[in-house]
C-alpha cells in the first residue's frame, strides 16, 4: 500500500531543559513521510537532525504536538522497534567492545521478544545480512568490534538492518565516518536493501550531494525547523528559502565557482 503515510508530524516540538536553559531542538514540525519513500533531512550542525531521527524511533518523546506512526501514536516501544530501526551516526561507538560482533548481531533479534525466530533461523538471517554487505560470515567469526575497520563496522550496522528487515529505516549520517572511497559502496547496499524490502528510509545528513543522489524528497532543516521540502532537483536547483539558498552556496562544489580570490 504505497503512498500511505508512515509517519505524520502534527506540530511537533521537542525541547530540552526548562526555564531559562531551554533548548528547542525541533520546532513546530508538520510533515509526513510516505511509505516506501526515501527522504533526506539536510541541515547544518546542531539544527536538530539527530533529534528528529530519535523522535521517529520513539527514543525521544515530543514535548508538544503529536507524532503518528501509521496513523497512531507510538505505543509500546519494543513493538515499534520491530518495524522501525536506526543506523547511528558513529559506527565506532555503536557496538559493545566486549562482545563478539556476531553475537551482537544475533542479539538484535531480542527486539522480537516472544516472536523471535529460532536460533538457527537467526543464524541464517545474520549470515544473509553479512553476505548482503559483502562480508564473508567466517571473516567476522569471533571477531570483536575493535578488530574491524570503520568501514567494516558501518557495514555491520547495515548487515544488522538486512538481518532484521525493518519496515522503516532511519539512517543518521550513515557514512559520516567512512572515507569517500567507501561511502558510495555503502549507499549502494542501502538502496539495494530498500528495493528488496520495500523499506521506507529516512536519511539524515549534512551532505547535500548525498541527499541529491539518493532521495525522493529532501527536507532542509534550519534551527529546528524544516524550511524547505521538495524533490531533489527542485531543492537543489531552484531553492526558494533563503536558508536553503545560503546553504547551497556555501557548499564547495567541484564544478561550481565557490569563492572569490
Amino acid at each position, binding site marked *: 500500500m504505497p503512498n500511505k503515510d508512515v509517519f505524520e508530524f502534527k506540530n511537533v516540538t521537542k525541547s530540552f531543559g526548562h526555564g531559562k536553559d531551554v533548548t528547542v531542538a525541533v520546532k513546530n514540525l508538520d510533515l509526513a513521510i510516505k511509505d516506501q519513500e526515501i527522504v533526506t533531512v539536510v541541515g547544518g550542525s546542531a539544527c536538530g537532525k539527530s533529534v528528529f531521527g530519535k523522535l521517529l524511533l520513539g527514543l525521544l518523546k515530543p514535548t508538544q504536538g503529536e507524532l503518528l506512526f501509521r496513523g497512531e501514536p507510538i505505543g509500546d516501544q519494543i513493538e515499534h522497534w520491530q518495524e522501525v530501526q536506526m543506523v547511528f551516526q558513529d559506527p565506532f561507538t555503536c557496538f559493545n567492545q566486549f562482545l563478539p560482533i556476531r553475537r551482537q548481531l544475533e542479539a538484535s533479534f531480542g527486539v522480537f521478544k516472544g516472536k523471535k525466530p529460532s536460533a538457527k533461523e537467526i543464524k541464517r538471517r545474520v549470515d544473509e545480512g553479512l553476505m548482503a554487505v559483502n562480508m564473508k560470515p567466517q571473516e567476522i567469526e569471533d571477531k570483536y568490534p575493535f578488530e574491524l575497520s570503520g*568501514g567494516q563496522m558501518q557495514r555491520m550496522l547495515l548487515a544488522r538492518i538486512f538481518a532484521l528487515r525493518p519496515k522503516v529505516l532511519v539512517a543518521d549520517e550513515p557514512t559520516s565516518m567512512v572515507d569517500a572511497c567507501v561511502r558510495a559502496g555503502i549507499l549502494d547496499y542501502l538502496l539495494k536493501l530498500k528495493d528488496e524490502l520495500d523499506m521506507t528510509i529516512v536519511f539524515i545528513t549534512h551532505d547535500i550531494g548525498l541527499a541529491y543522489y539518493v532521495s525522493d524528497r529532501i527536507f532542509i532543516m534550519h534551527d529546528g525547523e524544516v524550511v524547505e521540502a521538495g524533490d531533489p532537483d527542485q531543492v537543489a536547483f531552484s531553492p526558494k528559502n533563503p536558508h536553503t539558498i545560503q546553504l547551497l552556496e556555501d557548499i564547495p*562544489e567541484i564544478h561550481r565557482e565557490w569563492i572569490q580570490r
Partner: protein
Amino acid sequence: MAVFEVKNLSLHYRTRFGKRIHAVQDVSFSMEEGEILGIAGESGCGKTTLVSGCMGLFIPPLYPTSGDVLVRGESLMGRSPDEVRENVLSKKVSMIPQGAFNALNPTRKIKDLAADLIMSHEKDTVSRKDLYPRIRERFSILGMDTDKVLNSFPIQLTAGEKQRSVIGISTLLNPGMVIADEPTSALDVSTQKKIIGMIFDLLDKKIFSTMMFITHELNLLRHVADRIAIMYAGQIVELGTTEQIVFDGRHPYTQALMGSIMSVDENEKDKKPESLEGAPPNLANPIEGCRFAPRCKVAREDCKHTEQVIRMVGDREVRCKYAE
C-alpha cells in the same frame, strides 16, 4: 630557492610495546613563494603527522626516521629545538592546527595567549605598552569583533570565532608561510566558507604568501589549492596541479577518490559514484610492494611485490609504474 622543501621525509610513531608505525614514508615536495599546495587523503593516511614533521615538532611517540625539511634553504632537522623555536616557528612558518576547538589554552584569554606569543619571540624588542594595541590592530584588520574576542576565554567563543582567533594568533608574526591542517573540518559549511575567505584575505594582505593546505575534502581543495598532493598510507601517490588531479588523475587511487565524489550538478546527475573495496594497510606491519595494490582495480601481479617509486608522468609526479 624554494620557500619550503621536504626531502624524502619518513616519520614513525613508537608504540608502547616497541612497535613502529611508519606514518609518513618517503615524502618529498617543495613549494615556491606564493604557492598554495593542497594535501588530500583519507583519514589516517598521515597528513597530520606530516605536518608535525614539517614543523619539526617531535612530541613522543613521534620520531623522525630520515629525510629533511628545509625552510628557505635552512634545514630543520638536527637543529636544537630551541633554536628552531627561536628562529623559525611563527616567524618563518606557522601552523593552523586541526581541530581548533582544543587548540587554545582553555584558561587563557585570547589576548594573553597572543601576548605570550609576541613576548616569546620579541622579548627584547617589544615593550609591554605596545603589546595589546598591536594585537588589537591585527585582529581588527581581520574583521573580528576585537574587544569581545580578545577579552574572552576560548569557551566563551563560537567554533568559528575560535578558528579565526587561532588563525589570527598563528599569523601574528607575519610568518610568510602557513601550514593549515584541516582548518575547516568539523565546521558548518557557512562558517567554513567564512574561514576560507579570511585566509584569502590574509594572503591578499601579504601577511603570508605561501600555504600548505590539508584537508580530506577534495571539493574544497579544488577551490583553494594551486597544486594538490594525494596521500595514501603515508606516501604521496600523486602530485600535480589542481586541474590535473581533480579532472585528470592518473594514479588509480586518485581516480577512485575523485570518482567517489557525489555532487549536486546537473551534468553529473547520472554519474554513479565509484567505490573502493577494503581499507588502507595497517602501517604497523611491514608492507611489501605497492601499498595500494590490494585495493587497486588495475593492479598487476608484480605490484604486490615491488615497491613503487615516484616518477614523472608529464609534469606531475605519480607513484605508480603503470600510470599513464
